[in-house]
């Protein structure tokens, strides 16, 4: 047991009241803690940023350290949509459908210049940023971004997941945000 303690790190417990045999805190904080450390990402990789993501998932950078060991290749079980690469206008409706198939709560990370803004592809056939069709939580710049930057984006997502109010997804503000994108 003592040997293990040096090698694994435990998630920090949220603030609460502790006593002999009990620990009291708010449900929101516990749920946030659990969600934060068990994000299932759906990689939507269309080009070179996807290659950087492969490195991020590899042993050297190892996204699994942050609780995202299990990638979800079905949007229905995914928590986080990671869009990595150029999205052509023809791909737009497909990306949107993938987003709509995800269950709440869901987060979106836009990786790389192309997904964020169209990047160098300022042309009639390329979507000039995925935030034109779906809401985005975290933008990772770079062309392509290094795995460290993608990890940094994941940490930012983790922070959002941890601190999000349990009622946020039912709020009129959130509904208005989705309506802005024409999503019911």
């Amino acid at each position, binding site marked *: 047991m003592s040997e293990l303690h040096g090698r694994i790190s435990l998630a920090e417990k949220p603030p609460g009241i502790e006593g002999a045999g009990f620990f009291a805190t708010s449900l929101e904080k516990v749920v946030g803690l659990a969600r934060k450390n068990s994000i299932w990402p759906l990689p939507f990789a269309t080009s070179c940023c996807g290659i950087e993501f492969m490195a991020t998932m590899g042993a050297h950078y190892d996204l699994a350290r942050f609780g995202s060991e299990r990638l979800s290749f079905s949007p229905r079980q995914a928590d986080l949509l990671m869009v990595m690469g150029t999205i052509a206008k023809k791909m737009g409706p497909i990306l949107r459908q993938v987003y709509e198939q995800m269950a709440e709560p869901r987060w979106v990370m836009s990786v790389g210049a192309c997904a964020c*803004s169209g990047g160098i592809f*300022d*042309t*009639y*056939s390329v979507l*000039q940023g995925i935030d034109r069709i779906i809401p985005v939580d975290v933008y990772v710049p770079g062309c392509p971004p290094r795995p460290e930057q993608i990890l940094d984006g994941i940490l930012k997502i983790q922070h959002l997941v941890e601190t999000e109010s349990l009622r946020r997804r039912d709020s009129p503000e959130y509904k208005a945000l989705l309506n802005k994108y024409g999503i019911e």
Partner: protein
Amino acid sequence: MESAEQSETLTLLTERFGDSILSTDVHYGILSLSVKQAAIVDIIHFLYDHPQLRYQYLTTLCGIHYPELSQIAVMYQLHSLENNKRIRLKIWLPEDKPETPTITNLFAGANWMERETYDFFGVVFTGHPDLRRILNVEDMTIFPMRKEYPLEDQTREDKKDEMFGRLPHQHLRTS
């Protein structure tokens, strides 16, 4: 200058289609002919059926826009696999009504190439079994490879022309 074999091909074509050949040239060793639009299907059939020439493989087919001539050209490149010889044919269509018969009856592979040419240049291939856009989004209203349409996405706000050392709308036709 054309080789002896190309001269022979040219003689055969001139005998049959002398009035329809506008000009001939050799580009990168490939015999290249500008021909009248009305004769293109007959010429391609002739090249296909001729017992010696046997141009039975369609390498490619594409559109080219010449805004200074107000014309859209369609280029066909054929390959004779038996003789390992290539030939290039070019027809000229008016910009405002580019129309020419399909060659899908002869080459099934021309189907997608003609759809692509329609998609990007608006060339209508009459008799084509399924002439609709192939690469661009279905609801696109323009033919993007025509020069009057700018390359850039017009809704992008973060790119200003002066950042790239160009005048606004420099890429648009001035006429």
